[in-house]
């Protein structure tokens, strides 16, 4: 029996320590993903609360043959989608209420990171979800497919399109300097 399955079995048996362990294991992921998908910290905390309510309600329907993490993140993606749709129908808050101040110093790297994040925020919701899950949460294609409920091929297509949109935007914003001497920032 996997570690996830044992944890879930203890939670279903009503052990408070197991419930606390499950929340502690995934709360950072769920909160981080919700904050990135919603772009609003308070909303992200509310959604995180809802996500764990739903996780504990439907824990008995979880398939032990599958990993627990994508399942939990999938619930988070769905709740964020629902929340964003509900928010879109409601009155719009002022922009300054949406954005929390960035504690990082305004250096060049921070500027670039903000630009990239702003470009990610402008992506289509499904493209954004797969991009954030892949590049910010390190999820595999298979896990992302399980989380968003789409085939792996669809997830790959969405991620590739999201990347091309981002690359075009970075080039269009003049952030790419034509310097033949530049070297790769990361190597595979």
């Amino acid at each position, binding site marked *: 029996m996997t570690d996830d399955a044992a944890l879930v079995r203890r939670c279903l048996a009503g052990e408070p320590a197991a*419930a606390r362990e499950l929340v502690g294991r995934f709360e950072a992921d769920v909160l981080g993903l919700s904050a990135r998908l919603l772009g609003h910290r308070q909303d992200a905390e509310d959604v995180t609360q809802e996500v764990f309510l739903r996780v504990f309600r439907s824990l008995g329907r979880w398939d032990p043959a599958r990993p627990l993490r994508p399942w939990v993140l999938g619930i988070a993606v769905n709740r964020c989608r629902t929340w964003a749709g509900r928010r879109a129908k409601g009155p719009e808050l002022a922009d300054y209420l949406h954005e929390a101040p960035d504690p990082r110093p305004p250096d060049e790297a921070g500027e670039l990171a903000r630009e990239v994040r702003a470009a990610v925020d402008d992506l289509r919701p499904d493209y954004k979800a797969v991009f954030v899950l892949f590049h910010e949460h390190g999820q595999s294609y298979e896990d992302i497919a399980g989380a968003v409920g789409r085939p792996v091929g669809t997830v790959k297509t969405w991620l590739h399109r999201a*990347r091309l949109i981002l690359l075009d935007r970075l080039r269009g914003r003049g952030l790419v300097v034509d310097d033949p001497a530049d070297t790769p920032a990361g190597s595979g």
Partner: protein
Amino acid sequence: MTARPAEPDPIPPACVSTVARLQQALDGDLPWATLDADPHALGCTDCRGRVRAAKLLLAVYPAPANTVAVPSRMAETILAGVRADRRSRVVRRWVGVVGGLAAAVALVVWSPWQQVADRPEVAERPPVVEPERPPPPVRVGAELAKAGEALKEGSRAWVEPAAAAPKLFAALTETVAAPAVPPPPSVEPARQSLAELPDAARAGLEPVTGSAQKAWNRLLRDVGAVAVKPKS
């Protein structure tokens, strides 16, 4: 603010293979050195720009890192919410069970009354439509007999009053019968007085003769000659 691009621009066919390798590098499945040595990327301005932009992207996302700070009391808040949700679900479940039982009991108590009230009645038979029979054949003799009977019955209404009329006239005749004795000579003065009238006055009057008396007597004679036919 620029419009959000929903889809990327289409990739020219010459750039497709380089873009595919770029995606592999972003996936971490291909070393960047391979992409740097790509002959198309070296000659294509767009692909060279894409490769540099991809390196910038990886500079921002060097490794998956969740940098969000989790509030210290968040786990407690979540667990408290989960416990409250579990309690409310238990209460709802019990309310549902008790409500269902109450409804079942009410149904059991109520159903005998309902059975008596709503005893099914025998369904009415649909009216039987009998086929039209053909009219009976016309028999001339029977029809004539029926016509005769109808005539006899119908003529009774006017035959009986006509038969009663002579009796009435007979009664009248007895009442105003002419006297058996000759008329008294009292009429003479009337004749005399008429004779004494001047010619002008006499010319304007109908000559008084016995015509009225004759007509009256003739009527009485004729009426008396009618014999009352006895009823058949």
